């Protein structure tokens, strides 16, 4: 089945230690998104890629970066995680053909910062 895969499902890092979260998709979608979801809150969009075109949300901290080496993969890099970055990180994809297409979400990566 076509799907969105996130690895790892659970990630523990130390305060200030860089961490990378991974997302892959078999849907061949043009657009890939990263959301941050803190406990009992709605998901918040950090940034998205339309093909290789990177689009950062205005209020996304510089501490968060992303890479998309090819259509299938997208990475979220947190350069110096703080305690406030502990959250669920959701990856999503959509096919963008000019009209809005639904987003397909992965299962998420739960990040713990010690």
């Amino acid at each position, binding site marked *: 089945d076509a799907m*969105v895969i*996130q690895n790892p499902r659970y990630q523990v890092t130390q305060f200030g230690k860089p961490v990378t979260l991974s997302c892959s998709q078999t849907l061949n979608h043009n*657009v890939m*998104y990263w959301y941050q979801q803190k406990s*009992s*809150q*709605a*998901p918040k*969009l950090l940034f*998205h890629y*339309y093909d290789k075109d990177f*689009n950062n949300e205005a209020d996304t901290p510089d501490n968060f970066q992303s890479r998309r080496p090819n259509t299938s993969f997208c990475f979220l890099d947190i350069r110096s995680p703080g305690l406030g970055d502990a959250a669920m990180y*959701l990856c*999503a994809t*959509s096919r*963008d053909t000019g*009209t*809005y297409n*639904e*987003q*397909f*979400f*992965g*299962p*998420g990566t*739960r990040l713990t910062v010690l």
Partner: protein
Amino acid sequence: AQSVTQPDIHITVSEGASLELRCNYSYGATPYLFWYVQSPGQGLQLLLKYFSGDTLVQGIKGFEAEFKRSQSSFNLRKPSVHWSDAAEYFCAVVFSGSARQLTFGSGTQLTVLP
């Protein structure tokens, strides 16, 4: 300002009872409307969506939603709730001009009593 509101933070229903979750938006035109469900520790699953046409939309798992333009609402309903429906439900909206950005409501946590 554009916004989406879920007035109920937490709803409790008995198994077999009917369910209605409320969603209102603030916008001058008709946005694209979605309902997602999130089980604990999981990603988001799309229940249903409304772009245009028939204002009563059928989704998966026996859910339906009705778009009411006069009330700027898109309420989610289910005639008979099952214990497996216990989860968090998010209403999400795409406003025109932000074709790739989902704006989520704050979510409604559903508890189902046996």
